[in-house]
């Protein structure tokens, strides 16, 4: 099955069709998707700002990262469920939309980066971590997650 055929199959799925038929389902799912985005923003930013030396700084980074991670994973789950539903309702449009592919690439990179490189930094002993490296990691994280959010917003613009 080619990729396009898969997208067509998604578009023709019962769920996708049901969302398209309803005048309110898409907006409501999209609004929940937006709430999840805001929540991810908070969970990502408290940690990245800590790494940048902004915001919280007196507490251990490891503890803060653990606290934030729970909310990050929770909101990621909400995002993936609502995002999949939105996608099913307009898969063909997504296939031909550059913003969709940009978003998926950023999302993949953001998740991999957060749970590998960044996790290593937040769990390392802070005294041994170069401050420059911490800041670079934080900036990359903010950039990748911003790419996800803004890319997502641009799927809606034709």
């Amino acid at each position: 099955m080619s990729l396009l055929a898969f997208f067509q199959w998604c578009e023709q799925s019962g769920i996708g069709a049901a969302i398209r038929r309803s005048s309110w389902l898409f907006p409501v799912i999209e609004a929940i998707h937006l709430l999840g985005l805001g929540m991810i923003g908070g969970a990502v930013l408290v940690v990245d700002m800590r790494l940048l030396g902004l915001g919280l700084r007196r507490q251990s980074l490891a503890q803060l990262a653990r606290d934030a991670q729970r909310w990050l994973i929770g909101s990621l789950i909400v995002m993936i469920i609502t995002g999949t539903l939105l996608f099913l309702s307009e898969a063909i449009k997504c296939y031909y939309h550059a913003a969709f592919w940009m978003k998926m690439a950023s999302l993949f990179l953001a998740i991999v980066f957060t749970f590998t490189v960044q996790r290593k930094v937040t769990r390392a002993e802070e005294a041994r971590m170069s401050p420059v490296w911490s800041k670079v990691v934080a900036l990359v994280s903010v950039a990748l997650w911003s790419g996800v959010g803004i890319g997502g917003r641009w799927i809606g613009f034709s």
Partner: protein
Amino acid sequence: MGDSSWSTGLHESRYAYDLIESVHVWALCLFFGLAVMFDLRLLGWTMRSIPVSEVARRLLPWTAVGFVVMVISGALLFSAIPLRSYQNIFFRAKMIMLVLAGLNVWIFHSGVYRRVTTWDLDRITPKAARVAGALSLVLWICIVLSGRMIAYNWFDCDRQPQPAIINFLTSCVPDGSDH
């Protein structure tokens, strides 16, 4: 206002409107995300080992920055479609809830937060603080939801007939002719 060249330019521009909306969404992550983290702290659901006053001192200035960007970008978005927004029921609900959220902030800061040093690390925060956190959480969630709904206005003045109550709430005057 809608007839000004500024409004028309923004409305018809290929990218300006989309860009401002992207800024609005980005600032939402900063403002809403950090405000939610603070509310969750007030409820005792996260960062319990960090004193409330510390979270407030370090995070709230950033929510203020986010809020300023939200207001500026929001005002620009409004200026592109002023009349439609003004008569939009979701826009009106959002503005009312913004006022309520502001009141909640004011009551919290002039009330229980003044004594924060006495409950900074309590395992269970005072009831007034939990109520403020919960109210804030619910209000901001509803504000984001209604903000998103402004773009899908099922109750637009041009989509008549609408129930009389809707036309009353949106100050619409249906002219009876078909559009």
